[in-house]
C-alpha cells in the first residue's frame, strides 16, 4: 500500500500522534481521479450526570444516523472525485438535493480539503447506483454525517497526489510546497495550476492509499457562512426540476384518482369521448386510476374532470378522524409505574394527520421501451425505485436507468418513489414517454401523510425530583418500506434494543431522553391502517417532544419552578444547557408581555445535535381574529429565537436556512396545519385548505443562532429544530391562554374551509385570474 502524506505546515504536530489516517484510493483514469469508501465511526455513549440519572436509552448509545452509517459500512461502494484538465473537480453525490443544501455542503468539503475556490467544484446528483445498496438514501439527517469523512478523504488523496506530482517535476521535497486557490507554489517560484497537473497526477492503476485530513484549526471554508452554489439558478428560473426537463415526446400526463384512498377502477363509461377531447392522445386504466396524456397539462386536467369512472372500494373507506382516534386509544400500551408515594402528572395528547406534501407535487418522467427504461425524478431512495421499476416492468435492473433530479422540497415525501413507479406503469401501458404530474388536490389527498398519533405520558415526582417518566406513543403505522427496512432492522438486531420491528427501531433510535427523569421508558405501538403514510421531517420527534415539553411545563409549575430553571436543572449535559441558555438570553426569557401574550421555551436533542427554541405568541383577540381571506389567522408567533448546536456547523448559513424552515414547520404543526379524514380521504385539496405557515403566520422577528463548533463532527441538522419549534409554540400557547393544549394543531377542531368535491377529483382552473392582478 502506498502512503500519501500531504505537506505539513509549520508548527503542525506529528500526524502519527495527532491525526487519524483514512483509507482512500487512487483510481486508474486519464486525469487524476480519487475515491473513498462510505462508512463511519460509532460514537461513544454520552455520560449522564446530575439529578436522578436515567439509564441511557438506545438513542443515547447509537442513534438513527449512526445506524444508517454503520449499516453502510460493509457493503458500500466508492465515491469518486475527478480532477478535470481545466482545474475544476467533479463529484456526483449519491444523495438527493431537495432544498436542504447538500450539494453546497459537499462542495465546501471538497474545496476546503483541496484548497480550491468553491466555484471550481461541480457537484451533481448521481444516477441510481445499485452497488451502493442503501448508501444512496437521503434521510434521517444523515447525509453530511455519512459523507463528511469519505468526501474529505478522497479530496485529501487528490491533494497529496498533486503535491507529489509537482514535487517530482520540480525535484523538490513535497513538504516545501504550498497550495492555495487551485495553485501549487514552490519556494523557488515555480507555480502550477491543478488543471495543468491533472494528467500527470493520474494514476495508471487503482490502488489503496492512506491520507491525512486537514486539522480543523486549518479550516478556512468549513464553518464560514456560504451562499448556496445553486442560488443564481434558483433566482433566474434556470434551476431545473423534473417537470422542467424536455424529454422528447414525454407529453403531460395526469391520473384521474378515486374518491377514497386506494379505490380501484371498475369501469370507465366515456373512454372514447374523453380520448377525443382536444389535445388528448391517450387514456388508459392503470392500478391507481385512469391515466390521461395530452399536449398540455391544462388539457389533462379537463380530461381528468370529464372522465366518468365507476370506482371500487378503497382500503380505509369508513375511516374518519374519530374512528382512527378510537382505534389508537384502544391500542395504547399501558403505563407501568403506579403513582405510589409520589405525586404524578398524567396527560394525553392527540396529533392529527399531517401532510408532507412539498410545493413541487409528485412527478416523474418515464420512457419505457420493450428492452429498457429511463426515469427522471426527485428521488431519495433511487436504488429502491430502480429495483421496483425493474421488477414491475420485468426488466433486468441495469436496463432501467434512474436519474435523480433536483427536487422542489421533500419533507419525507421523496423517500418514496410513487410518481416514478406510476409514470413507468403509465408509459408502459401507453407505449409512449410520459411526463407525469400529480394535481395539488391529489398530492394532498392521495399523497403520503404523517399519520395521526396519541401520546400518553405519566411523570412521577417527589422531593424535588422526577423519579419516573413514561411515554406511550401510539400511531397509525408509518410506512418505512423505502428499502432500508431490512438492512436497518438487521443492524438493529445487533444493538441493545431487543427484538423490535422496524418502526420501533426507528422510534427507539431517534427518541433519546435529554433530561434526568429517573426511570424512563418511551414506547411506540402502531395500528396498521392502510392509509398512505411516510415519515415527515423529523419523523416521530415533533409529536413526542411536543408532548414531553408540555408535561415539563406542568412539572415545573407543580414543583414551583420557572420552566427555564426547571429544564436547566434536569438536562443531562452542559452542552444542552449552553444551547438552552443561549435561547433564553437572546430571546430575553421572562421579559414583560401584555396579557394574552406569553413566551415558551423547549429543547430537543437528536442526530448528535441540540436545539432550543424560544417563542413569543400573541393570543389576543385582535390578533387571533384578523380577517384574511381563505386563511387561518389565529394566534401569531411574533418572535422566535432558535439556537442550534450541530457539533461542527459546516455551512452556518445553510444551517440557519434549514432552521428557519424548521421554525415555520413547527408553528404550522402547533397552530394551523392538519388533514381532516372523512370517509377514507383527507378533505384538504389545496394550500388554502392545508394551512401550512404563510406570511401572515410567520414570526415577524426570527433569529437563528448557530453555536460555534463543539465536537468537531457534524451532527444532523436539517430536521432538528422542527420538534423544538413545535414544542416551543405549544408551550407558549399554553402559557398565554392559561391551559395546556392537548390536541394539535390547536385549530383542528374547526374546519376552516369549504371542502372541494371528491368527484371529479381535481378542481377546475379558474378563468378570472386577471381580476387579482396587483
Amino acid at each position, binding site marked *: 500500500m502506498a502512503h500519501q502524506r500531504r505537506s505539513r505546515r509549520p508548527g503542525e504536530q506529528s500526524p502519527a500522534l495527532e491525526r487519524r489516517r483514512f483509507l482512500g484510493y487512487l483510481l486508474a483514469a486519464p486525469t487524476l481521479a480519487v475515491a473513498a469508501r462510505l462508512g463511519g465511526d460509532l460514537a461513544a455513549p454520552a455520560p449522564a450526570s446530575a439529578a436522578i440519572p436515567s439509564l441511557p436509552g438506545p438513542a443515547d448509545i447509537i442513534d438513527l444516523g449512526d445506524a444508517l452509517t454503520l449499516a453502510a459500512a460493509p457493503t458500500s461502494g466508492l465515491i469518486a472525485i475527478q480532477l478535470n484538465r481545466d482545474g475544476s473537480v467533479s463529484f456526483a453525490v449519491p444523495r438527493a438535493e431537495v*432544498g436542504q*443544501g447538500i450539494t453546497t455542503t459537499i462542495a465546501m468539503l471538497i474545496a476546503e480539503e483541496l484548497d480550491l475556490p468553491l466555484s471550481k467544484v461541480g457537484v451533481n446528483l448521481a444516477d441510481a447506483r445499485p452497488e451502493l445498496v442503501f448508501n444512496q438514501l437521503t434521510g434521517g439527517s444523515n447525509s453530511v454525517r455519512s459523507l463528511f469523512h469519505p468526501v474529505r478523504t478522497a479530496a485529501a488523496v487528490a491533494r497529496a497526489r498533486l503535491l507529489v506530482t509537482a514535487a517530482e517535476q520540480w525535484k523538490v521535497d513535497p513538504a516545501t510546497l504550498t497550495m492555495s486557490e487551485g495553485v501549487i507554489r514552490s519556494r523557488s517560484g515555480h507555480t502550477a495550476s491543478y488543471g495543468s497537473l491533472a494528467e500527470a497526477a493520474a494514476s495508471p492503476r487503482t490502488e489503496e492509499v492512506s491520507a491525512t485530513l486537514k486539522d480543523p484549526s486549518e479550516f478556512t471554508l468549513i464553518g464560514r457562512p456560504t451562499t*448556496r452554489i*445553486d*442560488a*443564481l439558478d*434558483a*433566482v*433566474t*428560473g434556470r*434551476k431545473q*426540476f423534473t*417537470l*422542467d426537463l424536455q424529454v422528447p415526446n414525454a407529453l*403531460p400526463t395526469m391520473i384521474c384518482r378515486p374518491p377514497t384512498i386506494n379505490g380501484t377502477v371498475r369501469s370507465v363509461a366515456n373512454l372514447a369521448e374523453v380520448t377525443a377531447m382536444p389535445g388528448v392522445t391517450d387514456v388508459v386504466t392503470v392500478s391507481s386510476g385512469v391515466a390521461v396524456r395530452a399536449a*398540455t*397539462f*391544462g388539457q389533462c*386536467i*379537463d380530461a381528468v374532470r370529464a372522465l366518468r369512472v365507476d370506482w371500487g372500494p378503497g382500503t380505509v373507506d369508513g375511516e374518519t378522524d374519530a374512528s382512527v382516534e378510537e382505534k389508537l386509544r384502544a391500542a395504547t400500551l399501558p403505563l407501568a409505574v403506579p403513582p405510589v408515594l409520589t405525586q404524578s402528572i398524567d396527560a394525553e395528547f392527540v396529533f392529527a394527520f399531517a401532510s408532507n*406534501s*412539498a*410545493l*413541487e*407535487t409528485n412527478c416523474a418522467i418515464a420512457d419505457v421501451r420493450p428492452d429498457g427504461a429511463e426515469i427522471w425524478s426527485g428521488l431519495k431512495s433511487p436504488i429502491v425505485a430502480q429495483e421496483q421499476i425493474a421488477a414491475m416492468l420485468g426488466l433486468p435492473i441495469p436496463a432501467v436507468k434512474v436519474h435523480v433530479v*433536483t427536487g*422542489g*422540497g*421533500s419533507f419525507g415525501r421523496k423517500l418514496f418513489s410513487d410518481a416514478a413507479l406510476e409514470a413507468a406503469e403509465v408509459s408502459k401501458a401507453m407505449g409512449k414517454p410520459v411526463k407525469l404530474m400529480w394535481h*395539488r388536490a391529489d398530492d394532498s389527498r392521495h399523497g403520503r401523510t404523517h399519520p395521526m398519533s396519541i401520546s400518553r405520558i405519566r411523570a412521577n415526582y417527589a422531593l424535588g425530583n422526577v423519579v419516573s417518566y413514561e411515554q406511550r406513543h401510539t400511531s397509525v403505522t408509518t410506512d418505512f418500506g423505502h428499502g432500508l427496512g431490512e438492512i436497518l432492522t438487521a443492524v438493529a438486531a445487533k444493538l441493545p434494543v431487543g427484538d423490535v420491528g422496524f418502526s420501533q427501531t426507528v422510534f427507539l433510535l431517534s427518541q433519546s431522553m435529554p433530561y434526568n427523569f429517573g426511570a424512563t421508558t418511551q414506547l411506540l405501538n402502531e395500528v396498521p391502517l392502510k392509509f398512505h403514510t411516510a415519515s415527515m421531517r423529523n419523523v416521530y420527534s415533533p409529536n413526542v417532544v411536543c408532548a414531553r415539553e408540555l408535561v415539563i411545563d406542568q412539572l415545573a409549575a407543580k414543583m414551583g419552578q420557572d420552566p427555564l430553571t426547571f429544564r436547566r436543572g434536569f438536562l443531562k449535559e452542559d452542552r444542552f444547557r449552553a444551547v438552552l441558555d443561549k435561547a433564553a438570553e437572546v430571546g430575553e426569557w421572562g421579559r414583560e408581555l401584555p396579557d394574552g401574550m406569553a413566551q415558551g421555551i423547549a429543547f430537543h436533542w437528536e442526530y448528535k445535535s441540540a436545539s432550543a427554541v424560544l417563542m413569543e405568541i400573541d393570543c389576543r383577540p385582535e390578533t387571533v381574529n384578523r380577517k*384574511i381571506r381563505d386563511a387561518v389567522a389565529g394566534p401569531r408567533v411574533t418572535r422566535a429565537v432558535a439556537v442550534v448546536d450541530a457539533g461542527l456547523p459546516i455551512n452556518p*448559513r445553510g444551517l440557519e*436556512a434549514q432552521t*428557519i*424552515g*424548521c*421554525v*415555520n*414547520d413547527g408553528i404550522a404543526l402547533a397552530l394551523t396545519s392538519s388533514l381532516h379524514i372523512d370517509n377514507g380521504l383527507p378533505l384538504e385539496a*389545496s*394550500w*388554502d385548505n392545508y394551512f*401550512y*405557515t*404563510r*406570511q*401572515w403566520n*410567520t414570526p*415577524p422577528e426570527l433569529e437563528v443562532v448557530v453555536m460555534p463548533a463543539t465536537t468537531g463532527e457534524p451532527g444532523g441538522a436539517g430536521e432538528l429544530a422542527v420538534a423544538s419549534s413545535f414544542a416551543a409554540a405549544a408551550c407558549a400557547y399554553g402559557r398565554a391562554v392559561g391551559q395546556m393544549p392537548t390536541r394539535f394543531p390547536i385549530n383542528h377542531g374547526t374546519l376552516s374551509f369549504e371542502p372541494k368535491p371528491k368527484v371529479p377529483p*381535481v*378542481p377546475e*382552473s*379558474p*378563468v*378570472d*385570474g*386577471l381580476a*387579482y*392582478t*396587483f
Partner: protein
Amino acid sequence: MSQHTFTVNGKQVTVDTDDKVRLLWVLRDLLGITGPKYGCGINVCKACTSHINGKAFNPCSVPVSAIGPDDEITTIEGIADPATGALHPMQEAWLEQDVAQCGYCQPGQIMAAIAKVKQARSEGREISDADFDEIRNICRCGTYSRIRDAVRTAAAKM
C-alpha cells in the same frame, strides 16, 4: 384550435391551441418557458406568479384567449436587464440573503415581491410588515423571514 399572439419577455410569440388552455401551460408546455412553476393550478399557491403589463398575476388561472396581441407577459426569465443582462435588484437581494432553499417557489416569490414593492410605492409608501402579511405565495421550505429581509434590501435599491 386557434392562433394566439402576444409578447413574452420582449419577444412576440404565436401559439396554436385551444382558447381555454390556461396561460401557464402555454408558457410551460408549448413555449418551453419553465420559470413559472405549477403548485396548484387554482390561483392559490402563487408559484406561477408572473407579470402582465408590469403587474403580478397568476397564469394558471387565465385562459390564453384572455391575452391580447398588445399584452406583455414577463416571467422570471425576463426581469434581468435585457441590454446588459444585469440581474434585477430583487434577484440580487435574493442572492445576498441566500433566500432559496429548494427554490421551487422562488420565481413566483420574486415576481410577487417586485409587484408588491411597486404597489406600495404607487400608493406613496414603503413596503411594511403589513404588506408582507398580504403576500400569499406559499413557501413550503419556510423561507419567509429571508424573503422579508430580501424585499427590504431590494426596495432600498429599486
